[in-house]
């Protein structure tokens, strides 16, 4: 028996070695294809040019603007996480009516470009007050971004809530009241998800350019854009971007430190069902909250979009459809492939980021670095590196777009997946390791089935963001390539409002359709391994 065990452990060690090699290959490829172009551009700009004048321009006004952006991004992070927690709880932990409907419908703001939503909200405020000056302010930017990113918080937190071991909740309920259990047990258990939600939304908000630019609100990204596009001062723009990246790194470091030091409870096996609650006394209030949120975040802007689209009958809608038709296959394919690659790399990075080896952890940091770079600078970095005759097979084809998407969004997949892995007790992995089960079997038969819902959510988020990505794609798309968001935005200039609104509605419908298809195709797999469906 001993000898069999010895052999198994040896096999396990061999497979671990193989898996480590796989990690290094993927890590290496990521660095070569995505990390190195960034280092190359930043290195070229920072070390080859005389930036003393640019550094002089980093004055008090710059730092004051940075501070304002920090406040703005923090506000959006806190508001979105707060409302995302309420929505996540109501939709993933209670038996309120029409939960499945709300789960899908409330995601809608994520499907639409922030710029389009900003336009719709500005029109709505004008319709309501006869003036849009109220929304053309910091308040407006915070409001619109919070409405956009709350669904992201809802997804992350909802996923964490449904992963909590029901036995812990049931045991707690035997000792304390429901309210106390929520605040003392449930929320501390999902602390990593709450922090992840805040951090991701903070980074998204501080990097967001289109909404503050549209509302005429000056933030750090609009300043970077001005340096880049009005002054053609690429050096200063890159130095300013470096400040943004530094802030994101500090934030992530603090998050890591906090999570590591927090009294973090490992959550048990996901073989147990998600416990659902009947909030008898608050049922009406909960239902009302969902309806009010639906009206504010979706119905109101959509009324504007619909009214504008069909003002002159179906003509604009048909024209919009014909304009977008050539973009569908290409856009969906690229987003799909990028999302698959992002989730794959994100899983590898996440799996190793929780190991106590520094080189493994560095992968997630690299992902963060790239995620935090403003889209325009990221796009230019890829151009500067890949626009060489020998890289024509990448730069002149859609491969460059996939590289752009993967670099930009793999961090999100890695973050979500590592968060899910952290909720699994090490003992499960350790026991199977002692049994000599190979790492590939442990991953495919134990770990991946447990975190399959999170993998699916990571895929969906990567897909949605890739499908709607504009800032980097506009810099990279090969001439003649038809991409959905690019088409909407290039047509937008000087096109009638009805056409623009129609295009927005079509983009939204296509995104929703694709997500529904993925859901119905992948749901049987998820159900097979994991009863996530409440």
């Amino acid at each position, binding site marked *: 028996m001993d000898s069999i065990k010895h052999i198994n452990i040896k096999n396990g060690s061999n497979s671990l070695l193989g898996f480590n090699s796989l990690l290094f290959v993927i890590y290496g490829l990521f660095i070569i294809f995505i990390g190195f172009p960034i280092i190359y551009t930043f290195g070229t700009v920072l070390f080859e040019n005389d930036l003393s004048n640019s550094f002089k321009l980093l004055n008090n006004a710059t730092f004051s603007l940075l501070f304002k952006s920090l406040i703005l991004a923090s506000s959006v992070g806190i508001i979105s996480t707060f409302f995302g927690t309420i929505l996540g709880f109501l939709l993933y932990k209670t038996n309120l009516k029409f939960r499945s409907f709300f789960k899908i419908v409330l995601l809608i703001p994520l499907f639409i470009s922030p710029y389009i939503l900003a336009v719709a909200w500005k029109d709505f405020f004008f319709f309501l007050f006869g003036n849009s000056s109220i929304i053309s302010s910091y308040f407006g930017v915070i409001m619109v971004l919070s409405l956009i990113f709350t669904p992201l918080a809802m997804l992350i937190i909802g996923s964490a809530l449904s992963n909590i071991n029901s036995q812990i909740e049931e045991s707690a309920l035997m000792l304390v009241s429901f309210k106390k259990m929520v605040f003392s047990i449930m929320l501390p258990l999902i602390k990593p998800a709450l922090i992840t939600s805040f951090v991701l939304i903070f980074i998204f908000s501080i990097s967001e350019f289109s909404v503050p630019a549209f509302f005429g609100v000056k933030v750090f990204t609009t300043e970077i854009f001005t340096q880049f596009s009005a002054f053609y001062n690429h050096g200063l723009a890159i130095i300013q971007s470096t400040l943004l990246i530094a802030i994101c790194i500090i934030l992530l470091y603090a998050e890591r430190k906090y999570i590591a030091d927090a009294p973090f409870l490992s959550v048990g096996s996901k073989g147990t069902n998600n416990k659902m609650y009947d909030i008898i006394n608050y049922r009406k209030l909960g239902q009302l909250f969902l309806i009010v949120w639906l009206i504010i975040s979706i119905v109101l802007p959509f009324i504007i979009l619909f009214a504008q689209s069909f003002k002159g009958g179906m003509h604009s809608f048909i024209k919009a459809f014909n304009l977008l038709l050539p973009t569908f296959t290409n856009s969906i394919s690229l987003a799909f492939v990028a999302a698959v690659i992002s989730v794959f790399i994100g899983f590898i990075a996440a799996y190793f980021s929780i190991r106590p080896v520094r080189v493994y952890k560095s992968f997630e940091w690299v992902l963060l670095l790239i995620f935090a770079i403003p889209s325009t600078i990221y796009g230019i970095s890829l151009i500067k590196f890949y626009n060489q005759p020998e890289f024509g097979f990448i730069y002149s084809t859609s491969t460059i777009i996939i590289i752009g998407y993967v670099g930009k969004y793999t961090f999100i997949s890695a973050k979500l997946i590592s968060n899910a892995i952290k909720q699994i007790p090490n003992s499960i992995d350790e026991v199977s390791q002692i049994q000599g089960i190979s790492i590939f079997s442990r991953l495919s038969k134990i770990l991946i089935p447990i975190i399959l819902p999170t993998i699916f959510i990571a895929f969906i988020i990567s897909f949605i963001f890739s499908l709607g990505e504009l800032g980097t794609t506009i810099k990279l798309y090969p001439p003649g390539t038809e991409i959905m968001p690019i088409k909407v*935005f290039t047509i937008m200039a000087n096109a009638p409002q009805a056409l623009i609104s129609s295009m927005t509605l079509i983009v939204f419908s296509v995104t929703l359709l694709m997500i529904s298809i993925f859901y119905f195709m992948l749901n049987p797999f998820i159900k097979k391994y994991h009863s996530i469906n409440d």
Partner: protein
Amino acid sequence: MKNLSLIIIIFMASIITACNSDSNVVVVYTSVDQVFSEPVLKAFEKETGIKIKAIYDTEETKSTGVLNRLLAERNNTQCDVFWSGDPVRTIVLKTNDIIQPYNSEMAKGIDAAFKDTDVYWTGFSARARVLIYNKDILSRADVPQSIFDLVKEQYKGNVAIANPLFGTTTFHISAIFNALGDDRAKQFMMDLKANEVIIATSNGDVKKRVMQGQVACGLTDTDDAYEAMKESDNVDIVFLDQDGIGSLIMPNTVNLMKNSPNAENGKKLIDYLLSKETESRLAISCAQMPLHKGVETPQDVTSLDNIKPMSIDYDKTASKLQEIQLYLKNWVENN
């Protein structure tokens, strides 16, 4: 799992098939709105059989995305032809030494004022800066006739201009600086600010604010203004300063990129863009004013012969623009 693998393979295959290469092509980057430029390019493709591969710009990036991309690609040019909505961007490219001269036969009928002296770029179909106003707010008699009227008390808080750091507004302001001299121009800008001018995000935003009645009037380009007039009956336009410094005229410009990969096809496209047919087409689609004589235009398109143009040297204006950018940035931020 098999189904999933199949889907991935299909998607991968569709991407690979989308990446086929073609030699009879011309690559064009344009900052002209896609709704107006694409039909012209499609017509060229149909007439010549040369495949057009185009990159268009977005309003979100204030139409500077394409220009920045051209600058970033300078070491390995992908683009053959750059079609710009105004001369400023082309002059930036010329300053950066990434375009080459091309003297098109088709440009013979175009006035030398609209061409680069070394034919690095050639102008065609022009737009003008105009005042768009809301007829429900301003009667014809109350409409400003000069840009300098905009600082009058009666228009306080009721005038919009786009962010002068970008696009044609920056060009307009630098032309005013050249026309008036720095001191008078700065005084005018101060007066505008004192009169609580609204800084909109773009010319499109100016148009929208006027149409909605948020402001009485605003400065914009003729193509935006004509689109507004198509969408709404409550707006009209005025060519300013017809008794004074004149209206700013901004031709489209086209140029051949240095080391253009498909230079011969690029020249054919430039010839096509500079033709009377293209000018006629642009006059119909977006009320642009032809620079050739004798081009048929719709009745509502004003002829250049009927407008007093602002006297302008495009190179000097572009140079002034670089000089005053920091001043304009401070002007916007301290507004």
